[in-house]
């Protein structure tokens, strides 16, 4: 660049500028001066020449008038010796030259007359006239002697004046240049010292960085430099003072930091939480190496103790520039938890925004542990108290319940005794009556009547005996005193032998009795005597109530699906369960009201493995419903849909042996778990199980629909005189049901009035 050629040192710059200015100004001045002088010389020459011309004009009048041209010539020759006059001519008024003198080139001494016959052109006006040319000028002066008689013309050379001027310019220029150089050199020399001073000052201020407090010897050479030096010295001193202060601060800080590091766990993080500094104590506590922590995010030290929200809250608090105090749980490298008393101080930039966070912590785990122990002790004490209370409560509840059960049992017992006594009295009445009649009127009665009455006594005795046996059987099963000889029994064989016993009586009545076996390997773990009792009972019932047609005993394998009853007034809920449960291969019954549910559950022919019920329903309070259900289905697993129910309701539900609770909205996983838990509890319901199914189908009178659910009740007989006439204790089916349920099977009946009934039971197959 152009300024590169410019010297960079200030003294040189000044000298150069000075030199430049002079070099430009001196010639201008010189030329101007020379021109001035030249004009002066010219003016002088013109004036003098004019005077000469006038003199010639005056002196030549006489010669012209007298026509003495040689005198004229002499006059001219005298005058022509003047320097710089080249030629003098005298002409008459018409321009005819009268005399002409020229100066030769040899010099003004050598003047010669020139004889020329030509006319010169004279000015038109009779007055003084000057015509300037490049190298000379012509001056015309009129010759007047009363009238105009001629002209004097002097040719004056300007060359010598010009030469003189040029010479002068040359000299001046030379002198000016020399002067410029000298002045510049002088300036250079003169500025050297102050420049050195400035340089010193510059060097000094450059040194202030590390040599503050140093003083410059003040130069008094110039006021400015003196002032500069004084100012610099002052700056140096204040800098030194500041430096000392900073050093002290730093030292103090270091001491404090040391103290902090010695005492606390210190960590510095940037705003993103990246660790910039971790002191030894932190490393010691966390078991991390420095390189494992530095540059890493501080979340490495977070455990799972706090929620993310907790950390967010802390970050929010400190990002406003406020300090944060509190307790934080940290995890070390080996996932041990430490309770840390923590203070987080944000370092703020000039805008008040944090750019670093200093975290100062102390490990209070031991203290916490003590507190924890104390708390644990307290809690365990509380728990113990609560447990005790609960125990007392539950014991009270148990006692109350036992009491209730006992009184209920008592009621049942007395009711049973009452019914039994009634049932026993009926055959006894017949026996007593006819025995007395025979005793009193034996002779009056014909033999047929006698025989008829005797056979009544006999059959009623048998009935009484059976009744007593049945009652005893039922009592034994109820009391758990029955001995069950469970073994693998081939039901096909057992059925065949049982049928054999009835073949005679069926044949006599004109009924066909069939055995239909659809599958092989029908072995179950049962008490063969008891199952035989069931088969006998069913076959004799079929015999009793069938007048014509056939009775078929059928054995086969079936796949039994568990059946779940869902009760909810919310239809979407029902649909959801239906789809979900059917998808799992479970039979689903659903109803939208508590009363309908009770009806379904009371139907002894519908076996329900699980009840899922909402506990908020329009027609009956859920708690009432479950309470009611428990009166007749004590062991039925119940899952309560517990949405929007308060704790006291749920707690009261627990009194009714609720298996589990489900919350709305339902989660498939939760339902699956609950089902597995509840249905898996009872072996015979788990999943789709192969079962042995035995049924007795008759073509008898059938059972009215309203009686179907009662046929298994004790002492219940379908209400009409016809059945009464068939005899029976009314306990047979109750006993059968007890026996089958003891084998973890189910017994139910389906029937069409006038077409026949079908009693069916399932038993788990032998594994």
């Amino acid at each position, binding site marked *: 660049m152009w300024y590169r050629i410019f010297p960079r040192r200030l003294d040189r710059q000044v000298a150069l500028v000075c030199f430049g200015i002079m070099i430009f100004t001196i010639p201008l001045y010189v030329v101007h001066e020379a021109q001035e002088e030249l004009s002066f010389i010219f003016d002088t020459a013109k004036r003098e020449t004019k005077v000469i011309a006038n003199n010639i004009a005056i002196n030549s009048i006489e010669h012209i008038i007298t026509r003495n041209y040689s005198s004229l010539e002499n006059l001219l020759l005298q005058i022509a010796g003047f320097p710089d006059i080249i030629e003098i001519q005298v002409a008459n008024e018409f321009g005819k030259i009268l005399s002409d003198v020229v100066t030769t080139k040899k010099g003004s001494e050598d003047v010669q007359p020139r004889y020329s016959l030509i006319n010169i052109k004279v000015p038109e006006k009779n007055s003084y006239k000057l015509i300037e040319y490049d190298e000379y000028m012509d001056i015309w002066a009129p010759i007047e002697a009363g009238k105009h008689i001629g002209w004097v013309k002097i040719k004056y050379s300007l060359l010598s004046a010009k030469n003189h001027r040029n010479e002068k310019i040359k000299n001046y220029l030379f002198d000016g240049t020399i002067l410029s150089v000298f002045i510049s050199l002088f300036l250079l020399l003169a500025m050297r010292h102050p420049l050195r001073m400035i340089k010193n000052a510059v060097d000094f201020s450059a040194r202030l960085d590390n040599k503050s407090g140093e003083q410059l010897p003040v130069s008094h050479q110039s006021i400015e430099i003196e002032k500069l030096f004084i100012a610099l010295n002052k700056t140096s001193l204040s800098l030194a003072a500041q430096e000392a202060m900073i050093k002290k601060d730093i030292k103090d800080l270091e001491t404090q930091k040391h103290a902090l590091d010695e005492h606390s766990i210190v960590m510095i993080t940037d705003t993103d939480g990246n660790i910039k500094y971790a002191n030894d104590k932190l490393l010691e506590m966390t078991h991390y190496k420095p390189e494992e922590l530095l540059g890493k995010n501080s979340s490495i030290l977070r455990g799972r103790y706090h929620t993310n929200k907790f950390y967010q809250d802390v970050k929010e608090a400190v990002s406003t520039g406020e300090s944060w105090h509190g307790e934080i749980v940290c995890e070390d490298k080996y996932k041990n938890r430490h309770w840390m008393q923590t203070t987080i101080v944000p370092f703020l930039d000039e805008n008040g925004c944090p750019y670093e966070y200093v975290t100062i912590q102390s490990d209070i785990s031991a203290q916490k542990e003590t507190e924890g122990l104390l708390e644990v002790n307290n809690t365990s004490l509380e728990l113990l108290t609560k447990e005790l209370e609960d125990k007392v409560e539950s014991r009270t509840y148990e006692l109350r319940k036992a009491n209730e059960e006992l009184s209920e049992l008592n009621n049942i017992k007395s009711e049973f005794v009452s019914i039994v006594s009634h049932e026993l009295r*009926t055959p006894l009445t017949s*026996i007593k*009556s006819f025995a007395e*009649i025979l005793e009193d009127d034996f002779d009056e009665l014909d033999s047929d009547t006698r025989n008829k009455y005797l056979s009544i006594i006999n059959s009623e005795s048998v009935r009484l005996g059976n009744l007593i046996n049945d009652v005893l059987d039922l009592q034994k099963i109820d009391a758990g005193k029955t001995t069950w000889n469970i073994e693998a029994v081939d039901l096909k064989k057992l059925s065949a032998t049982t049928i054999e016993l009835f073949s005679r009586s069926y044949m006599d009545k004109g009924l066909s009795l069939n055995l239909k076996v659809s599958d092989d390997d029908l072995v179950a773990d049962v008490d063969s005597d008891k199952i035989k009792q069931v088969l006998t009972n069913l076959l004799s019932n079929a015999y009793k109530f069938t007048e014509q047609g056939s009775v078929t005993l059928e054995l086969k394998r079936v796949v039994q699906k568990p059946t779940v009853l869902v009760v909810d007034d919310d239809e979407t809920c029902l649909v959801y369960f239906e789809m979900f449960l059917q998808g799992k291969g479970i039979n689903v019954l659903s109803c939208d009201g508590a009363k309908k549910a009770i009806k379904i559950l009371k139907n002894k022919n519908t076996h329900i493995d699980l009840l899922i019920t909402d506990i908020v329903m329009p027609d009956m309070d859920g708690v009432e419903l479950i309470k009611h259900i428990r009166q007749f289905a004590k062991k039925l697993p119940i899952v309560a849909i517990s949405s929007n129910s308060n704790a006291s309701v749920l707690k009261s539900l627990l009194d009714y042996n609720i298996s589990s609770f489900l919350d709305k909205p339902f989660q498939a996983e939760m339902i699956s778990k609950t089902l597995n838990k509840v249905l898996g509890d009872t072996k015979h319901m788990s999943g789709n199980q192969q079962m042995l199914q035995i049924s007795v189908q008759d073509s008898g009178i059938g059972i009215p629909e309203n009686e179907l659910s009662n046929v298994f009740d004790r002492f219940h007989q379908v*209400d009409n005189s016809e059945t009464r006439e068939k005899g029976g204790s009314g306990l047979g089916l109750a006993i059968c049901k007890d026996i089958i349920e003891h084998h973890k099977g189910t017994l139910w009946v389906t029937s069409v009035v006038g077409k026949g009934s079908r009693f069916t039971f399932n038993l788990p197959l032998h594994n």
Partner: protein
Amino acid sequence: MNTHSNKTILICDDEPNIRESIRYAAVKEGYQYKMVGDGLVAYETACADIPDLIVLDVGMPNLTGYEVCKKLRQHPEMEQTKVLILTAFGQTEDKIKAFNVGATDFMTKPFSPRELRAKLNELLDK
């Protein structure tokens, strides 16, 4: 069958053998008789032709003896009709219950036919 009477006894019991024993007693004392084995039929039969005495078993299908008796008492023409209730429930409460529903007399099963005959005669003013 010492004397013949035109008084009618309605015998109601679901047990045929017991019906037979009552019938025997009625016939022996010379009374007319009708037999039914169902509570509702018993009431309807009584309404159709009011008998002089109704022997009612308690445990009967459709209507119990107590219920039949109660209904009979609400019938304007049978407020005073003699009703003998037979029950196998021999408790005092059962007797009280029988009188509460308006029974004229009460007998517990098992009964003696001699006792029954005496009761029939007593009730029918023989």
